[in-house]
């Protein structure tokens, strides 16, 4: 269920000419809605090197339609690298990354943009575009397809859902860190790709907006998208993810539903910090709490952690 469009470069003014190969956007194939459970992004025995260091060593993971997959793990475990590899930003040293069933290298940049959207860790902007324009940039991949008709609606909906509608006319540079993060998320949502890769979307956000962002992830998964989200807050991961992959030293230490994966021994080892996992008294979702000493008994805790 695919259709092809020949699209003109940029705004739609086709200019065939000698240098046209440099300018042409070529043919794109608009993807069909994925069936629930389809693997939209897969890593197969993925190894990634950054300089001399092997950051990812043999990752096997798939992100499926209709599912929120949380990537958790300590600093430097390779979460963001894995996300970048899934986004086709980093090349595999060996192994393979497949998007929508094909190796990432086989897709052109415009084709990939119809299939996956990526929220970077830090939102940057070289020039002071107004917020509305920034979100509208998320619609660029659809220019020249019938879905361009939905541009304004998608932009308005995305801005409303992350609560940045009232900033529409303000320049991006005048926003606070948390507001910028939400605008960046709105841009990603407006893209409406079936695979969302979000790198720490909650890092700069207050409590309310952290919950909001994860609820949006759930809604997108319910609507049939695949969502991969890098999270530091294990409580959020436990509450909202269908699956969690715990990364440790470039490998996947555990992969499965949070209720099964999040257990004391594994997390204590991976994070090198004693933790307790308790069921929430009302919902039963796992709560991950660092083992904290009662005031005055730190000495005992330190010796306990050392064993």
């Amino acid at each position, binding site marked *: *269920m*695919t*259709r092809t469009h020949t699209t003109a*470069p*940029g*705004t739609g*003014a086709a*200019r065939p000419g000698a*240098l046209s190969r*440099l*300018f042409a956007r070529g043919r794109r194939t*608009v*993807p*069909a*809605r994925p*069936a*629930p459970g389809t693997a939209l992004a897969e890593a197969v025995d993925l190894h990634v090197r950054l300089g001399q260091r092997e950051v990812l060593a043999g990752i096997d993971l798939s992100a499926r339609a209709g599912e929120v997959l949380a990537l958790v793990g300590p600093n430097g475990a390779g979460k963001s690298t894995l996300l970048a590899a899934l986004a086709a*930003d980093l090349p595999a040293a060996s192994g393979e990354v497949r998007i929508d069933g094909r190796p990432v290298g086989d897709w*052109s*940049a*415009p*084709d*990939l*943009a*119809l299939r996956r959207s*990526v929220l*970077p860790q830090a939102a*940057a902007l070289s*020039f*002071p*575009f*107004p917020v*509305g*324009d920034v979100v509208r*940039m*998320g619609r*660029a*991949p*659809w220019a020249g397809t*019938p*879905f361009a*008709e*939905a541009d*304004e*609606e998608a*932009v*308005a*909906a995305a*801005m409303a859902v992350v609560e940045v*509608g009232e900033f*529409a006319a303000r320049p991006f540079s005048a926003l606070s860190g948390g507001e910028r993060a939400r605008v960046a998320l709105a841009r990603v949502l407006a893209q*409406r*790709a*079936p695979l969302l890769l979000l790198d720490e979307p909650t890092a700069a956000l207050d409590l309310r907006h952290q919950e909001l962002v994860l609820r949006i992830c759930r*809604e*997108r998964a*319910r*609507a*049939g*998208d695949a969502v991969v989200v890098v999270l530091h807050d294990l409580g959020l991961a436990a509450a909202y993810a269908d699956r969690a992959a715990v990364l440790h030293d470039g490998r996947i230490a555990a992969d499965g539903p949070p209720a099964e994966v999040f257990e004391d021994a594994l997390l204590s080892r991976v994070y090198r910090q004693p933790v307790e996992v308790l069921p929430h008294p009302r919902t039963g979702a796992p709560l991950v709490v660092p083992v904290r000493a009662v005031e005055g008994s730190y000495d005992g805790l330190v010796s306990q952690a050392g064993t």
Partner: protein
Amino acid sequence: MTLPEAAPTPTKATAPGTEAAAPGTGTAPGPAAAAPTPAKATAPGTGTAGGWRGRKALLLTLALVATLLLLALVSAGTGAYRIPTADVLASAQHRLGLGGAPLDRVGESVLWNVRLPRVVLALLVGACLGCAGALMQGVFGNPLAEPGVIGISAGAAVGAVAAIGLGLSFFGNWTITVCAFVSGLATVSAVYLLSRNGGKTEVVTLILTGIAVNAFAGALIGLFVFFADSGQVNQITFWQLGSLAQATWPKVLAVLPCAAAGLFIAPLYARRLDLLSLGERPARHLGVDVERLRLALILVVALLTAAAVAVAGVITFVGLLVPHLLRMANGPGHRFLVPGSALAGAVVLVAGDLAARTLAQPAELPLGVLTALIGSPFFFWLLRRTRRKQGGWA
């Protein structure tokens, strides 16, 4: 066309061999329909903002075109041999076969062989410089990138000086342009490679690279001057200061292909330049082939800069000043900024040339000197303003 939330379902796509999807209704099977949203619900706020900005851009364009025409008319009539504006118009009408009347023989010659080529050349060079400035700033994602500041004009100048100094003439009229283009292209590529690291350009690195490139180009130009005979030295020195005094129709023709190609191609990249301001990776995530975009734009910048430098020498600050002013007036969107900078650059340079010819009559100021005299204080002001507003460029 009803689009379910987050559901890019081709509405009219027939599904060969798949489950029977109701064609044309847009009822996507499964959970996609769970979150319906009203189709075509345009946000009133954003819609009118866009419309207002569109009108503003149109007004600015009209104002710039009007100013340009007026300046061109005044410039064509002003000088040692004064021609009244009405006579300029009459002569133009006559040449176009729309009535009017020719001037006397001297007037006709002054207007058509001296003034008009000069006005047209100023217009072309200004458009090239303004447009190249806007493109450079977009590619580097940095408001300080300008062909003059980061050494590309100087690099193109080396090629042109070499052509003069060595008496090259293998391409006839086009020799200087071709040499300027080749050395300009080499310089842009070198600056780009030297100043980028891990997909980013720090301002300090960019400016320091510019200093180094300018110094090296200066040394090469010095060498050519050293080995040139006195006639060539005069030609080089005069040309280096930046001037349109030797404008002729053949010179206009020599740069026209480069300038026209660059000016027509540049706006095609406007939308992708907007996306590039998000950073390289996000731009790629939105479907921009960043490598190809960069390559194409560097070629275009080299074309435009070479065209300008080959006929007019090194004229700095136009490419810096013009896009900045337009960004303040109408925001950073490149769909207006790129063609707008070409237009405004033309206005600035036609005005600048008129000033250069008339301020110190009967002497004539070098145009490059004049733009630097006005541009440098603007640069200072820009630095101060940025420091105040965002603590300077890191």
